[in-house]
C-alpha cells in the first residue's frame, strides 16, 4: 500500500471521460442497443410470446 498516495481531485471525472471515450470508440450502436435492458426485456417478451403461440397441428 502506498501511504503517500493521494488521488487528484478530478480523478473520477478523468476516469469517466476516458471510459466514455473508449466505450464510444469501441462499442458499436448495435452493441449498445443489445446491451440495453429494455431491448433485452423486449426480446425476452417476444421470445416468450412466440414460444407460447407456436401452434401445433391438430388433425
Amino acid at each position, binding site marked *: 500500500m502506498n501511504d503517500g498516495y493521494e488521488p487528484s481531485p478530478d480523478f473520477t471525472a478523468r476516469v469517466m471521460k*476516458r471510459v466514455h471515450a473508449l466505450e464510444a470508440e469501441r462499442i458499436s450502436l448495435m452493441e449498445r442497443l*443489445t446491451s440495453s435492458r429494455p431491448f433485452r426485456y423486449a426480446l425476452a417478451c417476444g421470445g416468450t410470446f412466440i*414460444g407460447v403461440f407456436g401452434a401445433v397441428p391438430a*388433425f
Partner: protein
Amino acid sequence: MTDITESQALNHSLSGKHSTMRDYAVTIFWAIAIALLIRTFVIQPFTIPSGSMEDTLVVGDHLLASKFLYGIRVPFTDSRILKIRDPRRGDVIIFRYPEDRSKDFIKRVIGGPGDEIAIRDKQVFVNGIPYRNPHEVHKESLLLSREQGPRDNFGPVRVPAGSWFVMGDNRDRSYDSRFWGFVRNADIVGAAFVTYWSWDGETWRVRWNRIGKSIV
C-alpha cells in the same frame, strides 16, 4: 481501503460486458421457462390442417386449448392433478392419436366410460337413444354398408373405463373412433375453447369473423 489507479478503474468498467452476457442468459432462461410452463400447464395453441371438424373448425383456424380443465398431466406419467371436471359429451378435445402418439387429433366427445355407442345409417345412438349434436354435418348423401366400412354403420360398442369415444363434426370425412377405437384418458391433451386466429390460405385473407369465437 485499497488504492486504485486510473487504469484499474478503467478495466473494472469494461468488465461490465461479462455481466451483460450473464443478464442475457438469465433473461433467455426465464423466457423459455415461462413459455414452457404456460404451454404445459395453462394453455396451448393449435392449428387446424384438416377439415374433419368442419364447420365448427376450418382449415387455417388457430385455437387455444385449456391444459388444466381435465387436470394437469404430470410430465412423463399418466396421472393428472387438480382436475376441474371430466370431459363431457359434446366437448371438443385434443388428444394424442392412439396409433401415433407424436400426432395430435381434435374431435368431439360422443361417449364416456360405460356408454354404449352405435351408428345406424349415419345416425348416432348413445345407450340406445338417438344423439344428434347441433354441430355435426353430413356432406355426402351416399350410405355405406357395414361391410364397406364403419363410417355410416358401426357398433354397438361399450366404452371402457377411463376411455372416450370421439367423432369429427364433419361426419362423412373424419377419421375418428369409428376407425381406430377409443381415446384413453391419459392421451387427452386439453379442451379446445376459443379460436384466436383464422387464415384462409386459398384467398389469402384473414377470417375476421372467426377470431374470438368460442368452440362449443
